[in-house]
């Protein structure tokens, strides 16, 4: 009797349990906050570093409109070229130093090249990838062909990007020689990289569309392909666009497939044929050049790349929202 009267109110009111639970709760909250900080800190530091180091050259209009200073490496190794020579220096400091202040100071070729290759790769990979995913999820389902394709896609997601570069190099650049190095060749390599990502993410999104919608459409006398176009894809469009965008952003930042296939230029090439360059390739080669100026060009390219991806993401979000409401 006395035992129960001791225990019962204790466990009912549970002052001690409540306290313990509060402590546990606080500790878990703290742990989560720490985890967030640990995840966010590198990201913040990275963004900050890239912007601080690169923004200086990017804000100039010349950066977007002028050719790449092709001889930074040579000049810099000679120890003669300074920021003033490239037109980036502070005019007051540079006033007495002379040098070539107007001719070489841009990154337009790489910006144009990046846009070309990414647009080209998207035009190749997005329709194919989305249609492939539609086949897998709406038609192939668990048939033998679909299972094989799905497995191959999964394998392809894991293939390192450099392998895609070597692959296109071997079937395209080797065949056509130096003339084969072009924005188109780079687009091919990036498309190989994007395709499995798009197939995977799109199929995942299509799978989320409830079967009840497909049934509702079928019950109104709609053929499967019309149901797919009118109901299933629109219902999943937001996710499909996000997935494609992820692939685009990934492709825009890829270096390895590009350096094998695109060649090198210092003047803007608006064509898919002929050698070209991209921002990621510039980051790579400018850092190899080494030296103060080349490093500046590399940081500037990094900021530009981040900006391009950011603009792409934001515009796609905007477009997706419009889609979803309409």
């Amino acid at each position, binding site marked *: 009797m006395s035992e129960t009267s001791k225990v019962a109110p204790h466990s009912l009111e549970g002052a001690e349990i409540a306290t313990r639970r509060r402590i546990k709760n606080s500790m878990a909250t703290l742990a989560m906050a720490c985890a967030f900080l640990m995840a966010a800190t590198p990201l913040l530091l990275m963004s900050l570093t890239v912007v601080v180091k690169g923004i200086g050259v990017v804000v100039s209009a010349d950066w977007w409109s002028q050719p790449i200073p092709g001889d930074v490496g040579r000049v810099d190794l000679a120890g003669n070229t300074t920021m003033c020579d490239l037109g980036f220096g502070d005019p007051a400091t540079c006033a007495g130093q002379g040098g070539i202040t107007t001719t070489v100071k841009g990154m337009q070729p790489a910006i144009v090249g990046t846009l070309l290759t990414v647009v080209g790769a998207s035009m190749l990979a997005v329709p194919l990838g989305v249609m492939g995913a539609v086949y897998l999820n709406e038609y192939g389902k668990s048939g033998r062909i679909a299972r094989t394709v799905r497995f191959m896609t999964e394998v392809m997601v894991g293939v390192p990007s450099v392998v895609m570069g070597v692959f296109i190099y071997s079937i395209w650049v080797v065949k056509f020689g130096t003339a084969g190095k072009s924005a188109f060749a780079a687009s091919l390599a990036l498309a190989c990289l994007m395709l499995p990502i798009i197939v995977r993410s799109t199929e995942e999104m299509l799978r989320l569309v409830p079967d009840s*919608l497909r*049934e509702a459409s079928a*019950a109104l006398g709609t053929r499967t392909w019309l149901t797919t176009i009118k109901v299933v894809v629109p219902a999943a469009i937001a996710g499909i666009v996000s997935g494609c965008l992820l692939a685009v952003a990934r492709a825009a930042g890829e270096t390895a497939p590009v350096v094998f296939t695109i060649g090198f230029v210092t003047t803007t090439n608006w064509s898919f044929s002929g050698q070209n360059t991209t921002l990621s390739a510039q980051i790579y080669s400018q850092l190899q050049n080494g030296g103060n100026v080349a490093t500046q060009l590399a940081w500037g390219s990094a900021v530009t790349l981040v900006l391009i991806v950011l603009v792409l993401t934001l515009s796609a979000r905007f477009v997706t929202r419009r889609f979803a409401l309409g």
Partner: protein
Amino acid sequence: MAQNLVGASETNQTGATNAGAETPDQPFGGLQPSRLIPGFGETPDTAVSPLADIPGLLVDEPAPDNPTVFEVGALNVFYGEFRAVRDVTMSVREREITSFIGPSGCGKSTVLRCFNRMNDLVAGARVEGKLEYFGVDLYSERVNPVEVRRRIGMVFQKPNPFPKSIFDNVAYGPKIAGTKKKSDLEDIVERSLRQAALWDEVKDRLNSSALGMSGGQQQRLCIARAMAVDPEVILMDEPCSALDPIATARIEDLMRQLKDDYTILIVTHNMQQAARVSDATAFFSTEESAAGDRRSGVLVEFDRTDKIFSVPSDERTENYITGRFG
């Protein structure tokens, strides 16, 4: 025929006891449940029924000249090797409400989905036996399932409006069927929404999303959507199971109105609903499959609704209806 009549008079006695006493525990006097389904291809012979002189009990006298819409004979539905439902034999009459009742897993939804070939969409589903629609074998190779589904509409258990506007939901079917003129579509949308008793509630917000409506409104929207393609038959798979009693009452009113123009088949868990709205009732039950490991469904009895609910000829029907489920 003779056996049938004997069966009827025997069971009518039980039924009379039923109507009089609260707890009918009298067995069927050794009468084996007839495999000849009463009511198949004939109208019940109410002249010999001792119930005929109990006023108000036989609510709905059958209209003997209603043409037969569906003639079902020895229908079996398989999922792969598994026979989900066996031996369904019934005839569904025009401009009547035919309800399917029975415990969960007895295959009533499965059978319903055969009537517009929705089971085609389920991998491995197969149908054997006779299922004729105005004399045409629905499962003949010459029959176009898309056209079948356009003529035989369906309303599902869970309201499943498309993630589109209210207008676009209703206009979807007509658009697919080829109606292009905006004014025609507007007429169809208004007519369908009026038929579904939804027009007054939504006429001012036709362009807002259908997903913002209440569950009852969504279900009526789905009914409107099904009627917009001007079907000949409407199949309803537990249309009220997700709705509250008020919304249910509205749908039931709606069904009674629609009966003037449409043939309706409804699956319901709610026996009162079947008794309230339907003219004919099919009772399905479960049984151990031949292998003994899975439960499959079987049509136990098909007859006029008043007969099923007052003088069922099968013991299993009686047990189910009186709440002694066996």
